[in-house]
C-alpha cells in the first residue's frame, strides 16, 4: 500500500518534472501548492454532497493540501456547473459532474444553457449507482416480464415513479418503453423518499430509483426487486435479477465524476487523475463508499470524456432533444 502510493507519487512527480523541464509553466511545477475547492452543484447533506465530503477528506491525504467542499446549489445544478465552467482552469477548482442530470440544461432547447460538455475537462468518474425497479412485497408483479406484459396489454395503466424530466429514472422508463412497446403512467416526484412512501403505501405500483436508495428496504423485505439495470448483478442486492438476465438488454444508471473547467494544462490534469484514481481505488475509500451502497467506478481522462459523450447521445435520442 505505502509502496504503491510512493511509486505513484514518484511517477507523478517525474511526469511533472519532465513537463516543467519541457517548457511547461514553472508556476505550475509544484501543483498543488495551495488548497483546492471542490464544487458540489447541490445543497449540503444530499447524496452528491455526502460522497463529495468522503472524497475531499481522502484527497487531502493524498495531495497534502486542504480540499474544501463548496455547495453551490440552484438551477437544477447549473448554478454550480456554470460557476465551475467559468472558473480558472488551474486545477485548484474542481467539481462534480452528475450524469444524466447535467444534460437537460443545455440539450433541452427550452432551457438553453450556453455551456456544453466542451466547457469542462473531464478528469475521472467516481461512483455509479444503477437504476432498479422494485415493487411492494405483496405486488402482483412477480417478474419484470409480468410488469412489461401488463404495461403492453393495458397501456397507460401501470404506474411508476420518476424524479425529474430527463433524470435517470425517467430515461430508464423511456428506454423500456422504446424497447418493449410498453406504456407507463409516469408519476414525477421531487425526491426518492416521496416515491418510496407512495410505493410502500400502494399509491403507485412500481418504484424506479437507484440501488443505493432502496437496498435497505429490499433487505428488510418491504420491497422486492423486479430488475437491476446493470450489466452485472449488484453486490448490494444479493440474488436480485438484472434486466439482462431476464432478456431485456437495457442499462440505466446515475454517475458522478470529477471535472475542471476546460483548458486545464495537461500536466495538472495528469496529476489530478493520478491523485483521484489513487483515492478512489484505495481499500479504505471503497469500504466507505460501500456503506453508502455506492459502487466506485474509475473511468479516466479520455475514456471519461467518451463516456460523457456516449451518454449525451443516448439522452438526445430518448428525449428527442
Amino acid at each position, binding site marked *: 500500500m505505502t509502496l504503491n502510493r510512493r511509486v505513484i507519487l514518484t511517477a507523478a512527480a517525474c511526469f511533472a518534472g519532465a513537463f516543467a523541464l519541457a517548457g511547461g509553466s514553472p508556476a505550475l511545477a509544484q501543483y498543488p501548492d495551495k488548497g483546492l475547492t471542490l464544487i458540489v452543484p447541490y*445543497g*449540503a*447533506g*444530499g*447524496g452528491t*454532497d*455526502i460522497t463529495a*465530503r468522503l472524497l475531499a*477528506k481522502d484527497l487531502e491525504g493524498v495531495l497534502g493540501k486542504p480540499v474544501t467542499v*463548496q*455547495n*453551490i*446549489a*440552484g*438551477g*437544477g445544478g*447549473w*448554478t454550480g456547473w*456554470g460557476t465551475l465552467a467559468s472558473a480558472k482552469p488551474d486545477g485548484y477548482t474542481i467539481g462534480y459532474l452528475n450524469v444524466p442530470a447535467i444534460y*437537460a*440544461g443545455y440539450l*433541452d432547447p*427550452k*432551457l*438553453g*444553457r450556453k455551456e456544453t460538455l466542451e466547457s469542462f475537462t473531464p478528469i475521472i468518474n467516481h461512483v455509479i449507482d444503477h437504476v432498479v425497479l422494485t415493487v411492494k412485497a405483496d405486488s402482483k408483479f412477480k417478474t419484470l416480464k409480468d410488469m412489461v406484459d401488463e404495461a403492453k396489454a393495458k397501456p397507460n*395503466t401501470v*404506474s411508476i415513479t420518476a424524479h*425529474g*424530466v*430527463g433524470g435517470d429514472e425517467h430515461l430508464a422508463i423511456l428506454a423500456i418503453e422504446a424497447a418493449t412497446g410498453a406504456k407507463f*403512467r*409516469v*408519476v*414525477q*416526484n*421531487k*425526491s426518492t*423518499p*416521496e416515491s*418510496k*412512501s*407512495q410505493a*410502500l*403505501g*400502494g*399509491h*403507485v405500483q412500481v418504484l424506479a430509483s437507484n440501488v443505493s436508495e432502496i*437496498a*435497505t*428496504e429490499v*433487505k*428488510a423485505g*418491504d420491497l422486492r426487486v423486479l430488475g437491476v439495470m446493470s450489466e452485472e448483478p449488484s453486490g448490494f442486492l444479493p440474488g436480485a435479477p438484472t434486466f439482462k438476465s431476464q432478456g431485456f438488454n437495457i442499462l440505466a444508471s446515475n454517475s458522478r465524476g470529477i471535472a475542471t473547467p476546460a483548458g486545464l494544462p495537461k500536466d495538472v490534469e495528469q496529476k489530478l487523475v493520478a491523485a483521484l484514481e489513487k483515492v478512489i481505488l484505495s481499500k479504505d475509500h471503497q469500504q466507505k463508499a460501500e*456503506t*453508502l*451502497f455506492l459502487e466506485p467506478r474509475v473511468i479516466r481522462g479520455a475514456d471519461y470524456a467518451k463516456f460523457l459523450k456516449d451518454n449525451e447521445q443516448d439522452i438526445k435520442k430518448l428525449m428527442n432533444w
Partner: protein
Amino acid sequence: MEVLSVIADVLTPAHLLAMLAGVVGGLCIGALPGLTSNLGVALLLPVTFGMDPISALIMLTSLYAAAIYAGSFPAILLHTPGTSASAATAIDGFALTRKGEFNKAIRIATFSSVCGGVFSALMLLVIAPPLSLLSLKFGPPEYFMLAVFGLTIIGTLASGNMIKGLMSGAAGLAISTVGLDLDSGFPRFAFGSTDLQGGIGFVPAVIGLFSLSQALLMCEEPHRTIQQVKVTAGGQWRLFPTRDEIRQIRATVMRSSLIGGFIGILPGAGGDIGSWAAYNEAKRFSRNDPDFGKGSIRGVAASESANNATTGSAMVPLLTLGIPGSPTAAILLGALIIHGLQPGRTLFTVHAHFTYTVIVGFLLANLVMGFIGMGLGRYMGVVARLPNSILIAVVVVLSVVGAFSLGNNMYDVYTMMAFGLLGYLMRKGNFSPAPMVLGMILGPMAEQGFRQSVILADGPVVLHLLGSPISITLAALSLLSIVSAGYLEFKRTKAARAAG
C-alpha cells in the same frame, strides 16, 4: 433491565458531551436568521464521521431540536425568524417584546418548545411503528386535500382584512409556480434565466418578508428602540411560567403538539407547515382573546410547541421506513447510513439498544436546551433596548449572510432583497406577509398532489381525489373552515357597522 441499560448509556460522559455540543451548536445556528437546521445538521455531519454512532446521532438530533427552538429568539426579539419554522412566532412574540414583555415571550416559547419536543420524543419512543403506517396512507389525493385544508387557514389568518389576506395568499401561490414544471420539465416564468428555472427559494423569501422588511421599517425610526415601554411586572425574568400562564396556554400547547406531531410524520410537510397550522387552530380557539395576533402568549405557544413537535415525529417515518419526514430528517438519513445503520424495523429489534438510546438522548436534549435557552434568554432582552440604528445593521448583515449560506449563490440574496422590499411595502399597506408564505409552502404540495391524482385516476378525477376516508375528512374540514371563517368575518363586519 433493558430500560436501565439504555438510560445508563445515555448518561455516559461521551454521550452527554455530544448532546451538549449539539444543543449549543443548535442554539447558535437557530438563533442566527437564515442559518437553518438543515445547514447545521449538514455541516456537523462530517464532524461525526469519526464518532461512535450513538454519540453522532444524539449530537445531530440535539442540534435539530435546539435549532428549531432557538429560531424563536430572534423572531420574538427582532421579528426576524431564526428558522423559517418560527415565522408564525414572530407575530405575537414580537408584539410582546414591544410591550416590554420579552422575557415572558421567551419563557412561553421555551416552555412550549420543550413540551412539543418531549411530546414528539415520546411519540417516537412509544408508538413509532404504527404511526409510520399512517404516513403511508397519504398518497397524492390526500396531500392535495391536506394542502387545500392548509390554504383555508388563510381565511382565519386574514380575518379583519379578508380581501388583502386573500390577495397576499394568491400572490404566494402564483410565486410558487415559478421554475421547472416537475411533470413536463417546462420552465415556467423563467425568462431564460437558469436561476429562475430552479424556482424562487422559500427560505430566502421568508427571510426577506420577515427580517429585511423589519430592518426597513426600523429605518423609519433609527433612534428609537424596539421596546418602547418599561419592562412590565409580567415581563420580569423567571425560569418557569407562572401558574396562571400555564393555565392560559395548557390547551393550546396540547393541541399544537398534536398538530405538529401529526404534520411531522408526513414526508412532504415539516416545521413550517406545522407551526402555521397550529397557529391558525389556536386563533380559531382563541376567539375571545382580543390580544391574539397582537401579543398573545397563546400565539407564541401554538407555533413553538408545534414546530418542535415536528422534530421528533419527522423521525418516525425516518427510523421505521427510511422515509424522512422533513428536509432535516433527510440529512439524518444520510447520517444513519454512514454510520452503518439501516433504517427500518431492524432499528427497533436488532438495534433496539441503539435506537432507544438515541431517542432517550433526544428527549433529554429537549430538556437541556430549555434550561440553557432560559439561561441565555435572561441576557438577551438587552437587544430590545438597543437603538434601531445598531440593530438595522445587524439584521441586514445576518439576512444577507443567511440567504447566501443556503446555496452559496447571490441569486438567493437577490431573492431575499426583493422580498424584503415587497414585505416592507406590504406591511406599509396593511397586507400581512403570512398568507403569502403559506401560499408559497402549500402551492407546490397542492399542485403536485393534484397533477399526480390526474395521472393516477382511472375514472373521474374528483372521485379519485375523494377516494379515501382521509381525503373525505380533509375535504369536510376545509369546507367547515371556509364557512366558519366567512361567518365570523360577516359577524365581525356587522358588529363593526353597528358600533360605528
